[in-house]
């Protein structure tokens, strides 16, 4: 494991309507929300958590114009300098014929680039592992992880979450970033949990 092991207070909510005021109150109390894990995309949660607008689309635009430039420069070089060919009597610099390919490369570059950037931003990749705060976060629970500093009183945070309506609260010491490894060696699997 790389990065740093940190201490988290984890609260699980079973209702979206309880989650939103809880997020608001936790932020107002000055605690730092590490992340909220939800079974499905929750509309407006990013706004409630105070996350800034993503820059993914700016990255997408840059990839797209890179694709456009690549396509146009490569085809111009091939057909006018490197290997000029007479195709149907058209000029060597046959721009209209290149537009579909330019379009495709623009889309390809931006799509692939954005997927990779998205994976990087979310810290996802093949063979890469992240800590799961609660297995039911992919099923029916909204899991809020609050990051503790050395000054945070975790019993106080737990009480706070209790009052905010969390159904299940615990403290976890976990890796905050991603790492390469295997869950079955390093972490107890859900099927090995009691009561599965």
């Amino acid at each position, binding site marked *: 494991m790389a990065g740093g092991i940190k201490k988290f207070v984890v609260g699980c909510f079973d209702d979206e309507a309880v989650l939103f005021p809880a997020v608001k109150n936790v932020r107002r109390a000055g605690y730092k929300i590490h992340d909220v894990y939800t079974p499905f995309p929750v509309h407006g949660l990013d706004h409630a958590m105070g996350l800034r*607008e993503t820059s993914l*689309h700016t990255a997408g635009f840059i990839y797209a114009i890179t694709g456009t430039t690549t396509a146009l420069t490569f085809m111009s070089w091939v057909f006018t300098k490197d290997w000029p060919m007479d195709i149907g009597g058209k000029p060597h610099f046959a721009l209209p014929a290149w*537009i579909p390919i330019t379009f495709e490369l623009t889309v390809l570059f931006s799509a692939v680039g954005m997927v990779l950037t998205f994976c990087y931003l979310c810290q996802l990749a093949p063979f890469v592992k992240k800590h799961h705060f609660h297995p039911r976060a992919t099923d029916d629970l909204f899991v809020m992880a609050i990051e503790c500093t050395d000054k945070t009183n975790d019993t106080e945070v737990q009480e706070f979450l209790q009052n905010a309506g969390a159904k299940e609260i615990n403290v976890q010491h976990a890796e905050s970033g991603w790492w390469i490894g295997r869950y079955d060696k390093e972490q107890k699997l859900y099927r090995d949990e009691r009561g599965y």
Partner: protein
Amino acid sequence: MNQPFKLPGSYKMWTYGLIGAGIIAVLYGLIVFHPFEHAGHGHGGNTNSTRFWAVLLQNSVYWLLVVNAAMFFICVTTMAMGGWQVALRRVPEAISSVVPILGIITFAILMAIVWGGRTDIYHWLDKEAVANDHILNGKKGFLNPVLYTVWSAVTILLWWLLGKKMRSLSLKTDKAGSMDYETGKKWIFKNTVWASLFTVFFALTVASTVPWLWIMSIDPHWYSTMFSWYTFASTFVAGMSLIAIFIIFLKNRGQLEYVTEEHLHDLGKFMFAFSIFWTYLWFSQYMLIWYSNQPEETKYFIERIGTAEKAGPYKGIFFFNLIVNFLCPILILMKKGTKRSWTMITFVAVLIIFGHWIDFYQMVMPGTMRDHAEMMPFEFGVAALFIGLIMWGVGRYFTKHSLLAKNHPFLKESMIHHT
């Protein structure tokens, strides 16, 4: 909110000012251009009289299709069970209420061209030429004055009546009071049925036959299967821009309290997406013709941009068209911030409406005016007449009816709309 909306004095001033300027332009044309003089044999006879009819044709068809696109917008959003547009629905309704006015004017102009024997506009009206022309002879079943008249009349009449039905369904809810679940369901069903009828007829007209008859037949030897879609995209994106402009006007007057940046964002997306759609069709038409290089097809573009040896008279306008209608919208509207900015949307909407007016200009002029096309006060004056008429009709609808469809079953969905 319950008080009827009163048009500000400046709006009335602009409306009558534009109509006045337009009437002066048309009168000027009537007197100076001798529009009823015989056109001469084929193209390029009396340029001035050709100019009169070509400009009227371009403007009437363009503005009629633009205002009719507003009803298409209502119908497709209704069929898609859309809720977000309900808070602003009265604006496209108001715009579509101009269809009868512009429809009658357009029909009158088309009839004057066809029955006035304007062979300089429609070459296929020349019986002698058609008899000696293998291609035109083959198209005689479609390109003839009777079919042209009947189908134009049916088209305009049904746009009028089906649009009127959609508007009256909406206006009736204002008087009926709020609906319970069952009545609401019935009303939605009825509304959807009429919306589908309009949409089907729209597909049979704007998306196919009408651009063939009214515009493509100016170059009767030439044909393109892309043409109607390209015309549709052109007028639809201009129609969305017109809706946005009127919404922003009402917003500035403190009306439409439930229309927020979220709605503006969606309108901006429509303008952005359909600008790209227009480009896609424009390019598909151009590239296939350029690639296959058939003389009877390339003729259309040679008349516009010319050949490698000699530039055509419309080269500037042709590429300007692409800059205003593709490059500007795609670059300006790409960012979320600009789609949510009232100022930027106003700017781009005006640009798009002007851009597609130019687009129609370069559809009509090369086949009629050849190398003698002008863009002088007369051309802009006629456009002013149509803009003034649209403002007059829309203003009348705004003052006569509530600006909010307050009993529409989906109103709440529109109020809490969030993109």
